């Protein structure tokens, strides 16, 4: 366990009753990184995050978080970690200032009122500090929760689907804030199932059924998944989509408006399909670089959601 890792866990396993929610999970989060934690609903992301900050005790496995043992030193971890829950979990019947003040007291912060006032000013909520937190809109609640999680100046932020149900503008602002914090040296572990958020991360781990399927630097993921992707445009795109889905060598067809992304594990077989199609001269084919998005669609299709939604629908092929 090296000093430049904010989180390092090995073999984390958690059962709820007879149901195994997290199964021998390993993860290394380098200090200062934005680490994306992806997976469908019910895949065990929240449970894993809770084990990392000492809110749940794993059945087996070991790990450290900021140099503290996740089982024996949960109390110290809590002092140095900022945790933002999936559901808004500040007090809706307290005002914005009262909520921040309460959190500040929980961490026994010095200069409490100055720090709370500064946080309110950063949020742009100074004028609304006396408003009940429950009356804030979804985006504002998210920003308040982030401010609360950051109030005591933690070195590590654990964000559990922080932007679920928030409008695109608020999500963009939220990610600007996360990048700003990261630039200041804060390590961020963020779970999400938004593709556009995944591409903003330095590292990514993908989890399904409580098992880690893949992890590594964001740029390496497409290579790790091993997909080759072609981009197609042209007339009767729906007809082409239907035909390609039945064509051997094509593992996945994802549609983006009038454009298809056609992917396959077997590069040569896919090239053969492309050559055949190109010979008809109807569509424009371009080989696509990167392909992180296709890689995730492929992973999701391979590991359908335990709750039976998204996954398969987003997958296509």
């Amino acid at each position, binding site marked *: 366990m090296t000093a430049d890792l904010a989180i390092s866990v090995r073999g984390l396993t958690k059962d709820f009753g007879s149901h195994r929610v997290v199964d021998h999970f390993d993860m290394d989060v380098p200090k200062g990184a934005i680490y994306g934690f992806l997976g469908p609903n019910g895949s065990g992301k929240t449970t894993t995050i809770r084990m990392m900050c000492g*809110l749940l005790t794993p059945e087996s496995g070991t790990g450290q978080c900021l140099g503290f043992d996740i089982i024996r030193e949960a*109390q110290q971890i809590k002092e140095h970690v900022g945790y933002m829950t999936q559901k808004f*979990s*500040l*007090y*809706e019947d307290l005002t914005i200032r*009262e909520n921040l003040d309460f*959190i500040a007291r*929980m961490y026994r912060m010095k200069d409490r009122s100055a720090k709370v006032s500064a946080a309110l000013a950063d949020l742009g909520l100074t004028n609304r500090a006396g408003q009940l937190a429950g009356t804030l809109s979804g985006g504002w609640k998210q920003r308040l929760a982030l401010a609360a999680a950051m109030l005591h100046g933690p070195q590590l932020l654990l964000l559990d689907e922080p932007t679920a149900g928030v409008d695109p503008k608020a999500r963009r602002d939220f990610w600007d804030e996360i990048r700003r914090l990261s630039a200041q040296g804060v390590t961020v572990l963020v779970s999400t199932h938004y593709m556009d958020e995944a591409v903003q991360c330095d590292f990514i781990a993908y989890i399904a059924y409580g098992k880690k399927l893949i992890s590594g630097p964001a740029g390496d993921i497409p290579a790790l998944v091993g997909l080759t992707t072609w981009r197609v445009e042209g007339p009767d795109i729906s007809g082409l989509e239907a035909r390609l889905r039945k064509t051997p060598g094509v593992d996945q067809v994802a549609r983006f408006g009038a454009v298809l992304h056609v992917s396959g594990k077997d590069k040569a077989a896919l090239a053969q399909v492309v050559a055949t199609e190109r010979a008809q001269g109807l569509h424009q084919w371009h080989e696509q670089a990167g392909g992180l998005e296709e890689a995730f669609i492929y992973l999701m299709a391979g590991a359908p959601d335990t709750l039976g939604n998204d996954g398969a629908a987003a997958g296509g092929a």
Partner: protein
Amino acid sequence: MGFSFARFSAVLVKEFIQMRRDRITFGMMIGIPIMQLFLFGFAINSDPKHLPTLVEMADQGPITRAMLMAMKTSDYFAFEGIVTDREAGDRALRDGSANFVAVIPPGFERDVIRGLSPQILLAADASDPSAAGNAVAALSGIVSTAMAQTLTGPLRATAPSPAPFSVTVHKQFNPEGRTATNIVPGLLAIILSMTMVMITAVAIVRESEKGTMETLIATPVRPAEVMLGKITPYILVGYVQTLVFLLAARVIFDVPFLGSRLAFFTGFNLYIVVNLALGFLISTVTRSQMQAMQISFFTLLPTILLSGFMFPFAGMPGWAQVIGNAIPATHFLRITRKVMLKGAGLADISHDLAAIGLIMLVIVAVALKRYRQTLD
């Protein structure tokens, strides 16, 4: 890192703010107990008077009149009319329009004068024994007193002869036998138990249900700081309830407070703590405010029925007394009655204090074991 007074007081302040903002619950904590005190204090009467009575008169005369008049002045019987035959009397008992039917047989006056000891029948609706009991018990005394006054002169010989000795009953602690004197001190035990257990359980479960518990335990706060911070405001609520209650008992219901204040105060504090601990325990085994309310409610019935509040404890079978003894209200009820009505001091209630203390130890031990700092 031990107990942090700063975090404890932060939880305390937060709880007060939330309590203040939740006006309905706040009103319930103070308003409902007072309402119940008035309602039950005035409504419950275990010695009912003015029970509707009919008379079937097959004969009448001065002796009959004197006897009926004596029954009426006893306040137990309110004569509502005369029935002419047996069926009408039975019908009135069955449909509840009368609790008693007194039957004066034909030739009653004549038979009395002849010394034949004729019988008067008092048909009573005993489906509710406690409603009929006192009136029936009082009847023979009423009749013999009335007859002793009426059957004078030559009729003296026919009057019932007095017993060779007399028994003097000395009704202590509640000489007038007023129900309110008995009910009001007991009601304090019931109302405190009801509000303290339920409010504490709900206040804690609310944190889990709304998800705020997750934020709370992700901070370095300790279980003891949360527990004490959440419970202390409700201790104060218990104090306010009791103060209002004692005032009302004195001013409105004229219930005395004869015993040691220290004894009362000691028992009362112990009782509040045991109820809060019970509420805390309930909160650790429930997942929603609704469940917490339901379980609190289920503890209420045995508290009312088996504690000796409604029915005499001594009248319960042994196994029921064992259950009753495990209920904190049983012991606090004895403390309030002993201290307020019988003038008891600390020494007189030491057994009850020990019992509550024991129950408290068990509850606190289980509650602390159940409450964890993690979400598993």
